[in-house]
């Protein structure tokens, strides 16, 4: 057992690249690329941020419509990987937000907003049915995570 104490890690050849031995001892993975560059837990019902990382602000544009601005920007507008989800506590899937006649509540990137290095526009919405498309909706938990290269 050895303990290394340091405040900052920097690559020698490339400052932003450090290899880490993988679990199988046969390959390496990249430390910087494997780290989440942004995440947020947002309660849009109460308009409260439960926790976040690398987020300077979150704008609640409308019901189920959010813009997260990064503290440190990404390097490319489209070169990032976003995962989103919702926590539907409002109805236990028993009424309009979800249920046997609807798909589940979900979240994703806004399709009508250009991608950006400095922010991400994302939306949460309830399930769709044969006669009603999924509309934006607020939920108690809305989650967004970003991987990619920092600028």
């Amino acid at each position, binding site marked *: 057992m050895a303990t290394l104490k340091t405040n900052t890690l920097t690559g020698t050849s490339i400052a932003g690249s450090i290899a880490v031995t993988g679990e199988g001892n046969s390959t390496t993975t990249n430390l910087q690329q*494997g780290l989440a560059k942004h995440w947020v837990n947002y309660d849009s019902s109460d308009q409260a941020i439960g926790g976040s990382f690398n987020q300077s602000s979150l704008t609640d544009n409308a019901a189920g419509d959010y813009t997260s601005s990064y503290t440190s920007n990404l390097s490319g507008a489209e070169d990032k*990987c976003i995962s989103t989800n919702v926590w539907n506590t409002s109805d236990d899937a028993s009424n309009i937000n979800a249920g046997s006649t609807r798909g589940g509540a*979900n979240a994703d990137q806004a399709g009508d907003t250009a991608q950006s290095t400095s922010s991400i526009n994302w939306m949460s919405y309830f399930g769709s049915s044969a006669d009603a498309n999924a509309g934006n909706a607020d939920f108690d938990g809305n989650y967004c995570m970003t991987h990619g290269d920092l600028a």
Partner: protein
Amino acid sequence: MSTLRTNALEGMDAKNSITIVAGAGNITTTNVQEGLVKIWVDLDGTGTIAIDDSLNCASATDNNTGNYTVTYTNNMASATYSPTGGGSNRRVIIFESRATSNTNIYSQDHNDGTNEADADPACFHICGDLA
């Protein structure tokens, strides 16, 4: 302030295990390798499929509308890893199959859940052990 400059990190007792103090109380540790995402991809599934950016992805195949297979550069240790996805413009990412070397995803139109539909971006992350 101290800065460690290195190109690679290995565990001392086991090469594949490094712990780091990460708890709010400065006591609890977590495992660096286990905490890292091993694969992520930003796919453009419209038109000719393209990988806009990725970690540990070798190629992407457009099987059909909203149906893509992504092959890894370095394989996962088992097929029981944890994938999470995110689409755009009401596209939901469904994982059809997981293998140690690739995964097959469907991009489905949330407003018409029975139909696959192309997405840009179609994203997913994978956590788990490398082979």
